[in-house]
């Protein structure tokens, strides 16, 4: 899968610049192609009853576009794919939900490199695929300087926070995970040496309680610097939530957090 995506990345890089003014038909054709690459001949149904995707129509900061995905409560979704057509590597992330997940609402932040469609594709336990999309006007998010302070980014690398969510619906257990990581995608330049900073990005984030998985995110270079994920979960008890993050250099960062609102 990764090799295939790298090849895709190169093709996308080559054609990306000309996209700003394309029409609906061109966008639909591109999605057809990407869909086929991702899911082969499996049918992907319009899924607006099951899945919604929200993002600002015009990004305020192309390097940090907040997105929200909502899934119907009884939909039995096991996997969620986030795709960004116009990005050098279109698959931004794949969320695998575990037994302790409450996948009704999920938020993260992504980089957007060109005016593009974002897609959320949900896969049910019985293998059906449902998709929805949203058009976002943003440009330059992938080559935007990752951090204004590379030294600080390095010192803070791998630090994490787990926070409560102020506007969570009553009765839901939700939390926001923040991971400090510059998520270098290989397209940013070192300000001093003027060489491209080698890619180093978060590839995997697992959150669980007492060994019961909440979610496992396979991520890629399209996640924003300092990845942030707001997720719902079904408490298995009052044990801490265990977070394990691995990046593309195989560095592993682990932390345990008291459940928000249940801290000692």
């Amino acid at each position, binding site marked *: 899968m990764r090799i295939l995506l790298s090849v895709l990345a190169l093709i996308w890089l080559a054609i990306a610049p000309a996209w700003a003014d394309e029409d609906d038909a061109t966008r639909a054709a591109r999605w057809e192609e990407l869909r086929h690459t991702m899911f082969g001949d499996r049918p992907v149904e319009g899924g607006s009853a099951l899945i919604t995707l929200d993002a600002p129509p015009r990004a*305020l*900061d192309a390097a*940090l576009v*907040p997105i*929200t995905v909502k899934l119907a409560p009884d939909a039995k979704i096991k996997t969620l794919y986030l795709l960004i057509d116009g990005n050098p590597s279109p698959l931004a992330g794949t969320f695998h939900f575990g037994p302790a997940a409450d996948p009704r609402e999920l*938020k993260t*932040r992504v980089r957007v490199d060109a005016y593009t469609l974002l897609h959320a594709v949900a896969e049910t336990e019985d293998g059906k695929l449902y998709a929805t999309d949203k058009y976002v006007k943003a440009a*330059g998010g992938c*080559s935007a*300087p990752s951090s*204004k*302070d590379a030294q600080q980014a390095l010192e*803070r690398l791998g*630090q994490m*926070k787990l*926070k*409560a*969510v*102020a*506007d969570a619906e009553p009765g839901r257990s939700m939390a*926001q995970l*923040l991971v*400090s990581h510059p998520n270098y995608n290989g397209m*940013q*330049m*070192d*300000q*001093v040496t*003027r060489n491209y900073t080698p890619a180093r990005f978060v590839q995997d984030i697992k959150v669980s309680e007492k060994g019961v998985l909440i979610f496992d995110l396979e991520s890629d270079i399209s996640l924003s*610097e*300092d990845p942030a994920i*707001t997720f719902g979960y079904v408490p298995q008890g009052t044990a801490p939530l265990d977070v394990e993050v691995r990046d593309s250099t195989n560095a592993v960062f682990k932390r345990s957090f008291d459940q*928000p609102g249940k801290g000692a």
Partner: protein
Amino acid sequence: MAARVLAGFLAILLLTATGAVAAPIPFEMAEVAPGIFVRQGVHEDATAENGDAIANIGFIVGPAAVAVIDPGGSGEDGERLRATVATKTDRPIRYVIMTHDHPDHIFGAAAFEADHPTYVGHARLPGEMAERGPYYRDELVKILGESRAGNYVMPTQLVETTSEIDLGGRRLELTAHATAHTDNDLSIFDPETKTLWAGDLLFVDRVPSIDGSLIGWLKVLKTLETVPALRAIPGHGPVSVPWPSGAADETRYLDSLAREIRALIAKDGDIETAVREVGLGERDKWRLFDDYNGHNVTVAFKELEWE
């Protein structure tokens, strides 16, 4: 015969070529202090109509030489500024000082190449230019076209901390700042007239835009307040404001962003809520507020959530 026809043809070609390029029209400039001339930019984003003449730009005339401070927002803007210098003095342009990497301030730089000036900038300016310059140029060409857009020029003299340049007895003090409006802000102080050329470290009337660090900017403002200046020249706003009182609005706006975002983060509020709610008390106090406040809040939230 053939030669004569060819010569005539060439003459016509030459006339057409020179006729097509109209001589740049000098600006009306304000002399904000003896020898300091400023052209006020309009409070708009770059359009084909305004030619990206949206920043305050100008020059300082010394006994032996001229320093241009911010060469303009496009090739056209730079050429007009260069023509304006010639209406005020016949002393040579020895320096082109660039206050930071944003195109509305520096894309006129190439218009001064015939003067062979020293191009001066912050030590981090070349890196920013290398990374963003081509992108800025593409964007500006889309708006103005190839012939009007101009281009950036790499600085030939870098300022790491502080430095001085001498215009023949008139010394200018240059200070390279820590990350604030951008990560390559340079300010200029003229002790002779006690004038601080603040560049985009100071916005007046037009809402500030953060491309560096909110907290860093507030810190730099505190330092600048101690500069013994009578007046400051903002990067956007009037051609001159009293100093340090002229920074009051900007400090209040940036302070309110920091205070409101920190309060929201303490209550576990998220970035979407921040974008909807933060800074609204300032909305009727600034031009272009709706175009930039959401961006500022996004950038500042990202910075403050890791405090």
